[in-house]
């Protein structure tokens, strides 16, 4: 029966922005990064328990790097039996989960200790983490046995605010995921994220802003644990109204009306004679009255 099951790969991307979490620890001491990781581990354990063939990966998204918490290079399937320091389960926990959880805890501790936050780099590198997740999914897909199928999805646990600078990369990642039929789910802890709303809408994933952070584990199990087959049968939070305004290429502000380059379709909030992306020179016929004012603009062919 196991070989008939379709494989399901879940990649969890956790926003571990140290600045946001540091502030959070002071705002709400009962919900810290440790508690968040506990909830993530409950969710990931539940995913592995649901079906034997389920696969998992966890990426920590920091402001300096994106790091795989699980699986990582130090872990190989057969190795833990011989290692004295971590002899597998000493209690009733399923051994695979014990080993996995210990590794994740170790890795996140090391990550937070060794990375320093410098100067302006305060924003979570979410687009980069998503790109890494896509690459991992791609690699696992290639390594499948002949005839096996796999459905993948990415769950993003978002803490800090959106980064306007990552807009382009983010949109590219979203479209790549859509092409590969990879769902992007979003579980937002603080402020709503327009980018993730678009991601969920475009790829067919679920978006949820958690009302109570302390109950994060329960929300994860109720909403994000079922895979896409099961989701078609369950009643789940409805899609939110998505803000589809694009960001201008010059300032990254969201605009409703703007100028579009007819060659490369880049969007600008203000008129400029040359497109900064493709360097086309624009010729625009201005009304007679304006021509006198804008002496500096030279009409070019």
């Amino acid at each position, binding site marked *: *029966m196991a070989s008939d099951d379709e494989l399901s790969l879940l990649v969890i991307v956790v926003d571990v922005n140290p600045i946001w979490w540091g502030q959070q620890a002071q705002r709400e001491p009962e919900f810290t990064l440790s508690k968040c990781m506990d909830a993530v581990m*409950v969710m990931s*354990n*539940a995913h592995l*328990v*649901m*079906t*034997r063939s389920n696969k998992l990966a966890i990426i920590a998204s920091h402001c300096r790097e994106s790091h795989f918490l699980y699986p990582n290079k130090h872990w190989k399937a*057969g190795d833990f039996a*011989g290692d*004295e320091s971590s*002899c597998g*389960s*000493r*209690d*009733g*926990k*399923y*051994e695979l*989960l*014990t080993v996995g959880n210990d590794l994740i805890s170790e890795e996140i501790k090391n990550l937070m200790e060794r990375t320093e936050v410098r100067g302006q780099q305060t924003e979570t590198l979410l687009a980069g983490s998503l790109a890494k997740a896509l690459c991992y999914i791609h690699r696992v897909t290639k390594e499948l*046995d*002949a*005839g096996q199928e796999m459905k993948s999805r990415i769950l993003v646990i978002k803490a800090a605010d959106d980064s306007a600078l990552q807009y382009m990369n983010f949109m590219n990642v979203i479209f790549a995921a859509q092409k590969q039929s990879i769902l992007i789910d979003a579980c937002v802890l603080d402020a709503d994220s327009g980018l993730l709303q678009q991601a969920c809408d475009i790829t067919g994933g679920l978006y949820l802003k958690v009302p109570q952070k302390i109950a994060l*584990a*329960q929300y994860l*199990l*109720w909403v994000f*644990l*079922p895979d896409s*087959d*099961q989701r*078609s*049968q*369950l*009643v789940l939070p409805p899609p939110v109204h998505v803000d589809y305004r694009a960001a201008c290429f010059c300032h990254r502000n969201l605009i409703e009306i703007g100028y579009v380059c007819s060659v490369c379709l880049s969007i600008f909030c203000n008129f400029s004679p040359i497109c900064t992306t493709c360097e086309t020179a624009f010729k625009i016929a201005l009304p007679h009255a304006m021509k006198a004012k804008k002496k500096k603009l030279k009409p070019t062919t």
Partner: protein
Amino acid sequence: MKLREQLRCKNLHEFLKELSPAVLDRLYNHPATCLAVFRELPQLAKNYVMRMLFLEQPLPQAAVAYWVKKENQKEHEESTGVLSGLRLWHTQQLPGGLQGLILNPIFKDNLRIALLGGGKAWADDTSQFGPDKHARDIDSLDKYAIERWEIIHFLRTRAHPVMLKQTPVLPPTITDQIALWELERDRLQFSEGKTQSYGNSGVSFKTQSYGDIGVLYNQFLSQVDFEVLRNHAKDLGVLIWENPQNRVMVVTQAGHSDVKKFWKRQKH
């Protein structure tokens, strides 16, 4: 009682449903059992269990009915039926008169342990034993496996990615042929045996006895002799193998005495 992995969902459930609640509760006292039973549930039922795993209060039955979409009512009933039949959840009266549902506490506790930890270990503590004296590391195991099954395995692992997309991976003709060759080789085991020459003018051959496989007849001087003996052995049903070109044949140990008698009669 053994829970074999090959048991399909229906059989396991049929079996478990027949057990009394007391026995089931004893069964569910082990995290390993809870895990196994959980994995055999229909998908929807698995989700229901996960949702209720961390609740301490019963949920109104009506609320659970709202979890599923209207068009999937059938799956809902199938799952609730399975969960009730296996006594994984109980009905309980809520304050206010409504019917509520709550997970079997023994099952709930032990599944939580399997998921999160606590409780007793599944097997004896093996850390006392020290390193496994007969430990085989992965490489030597690989080599051993490969030697037994070398050629087919070799081809399979090095198959071109395009071939990998076909099922079966290797053309069946090749696999079959190699398997046959392997079996042929296995059939002839060389062990110490006696050599006997049966000679007389005009009729002679040699026999060699190989362990308990059989007796090899070879070096027939004429085709006719070979055929006579071969036909006789075939009639008796003791002919294992023959090679007419080389005039060689193999007869079972038991049949050998009969064939010998026959030949002796023929001599005269």
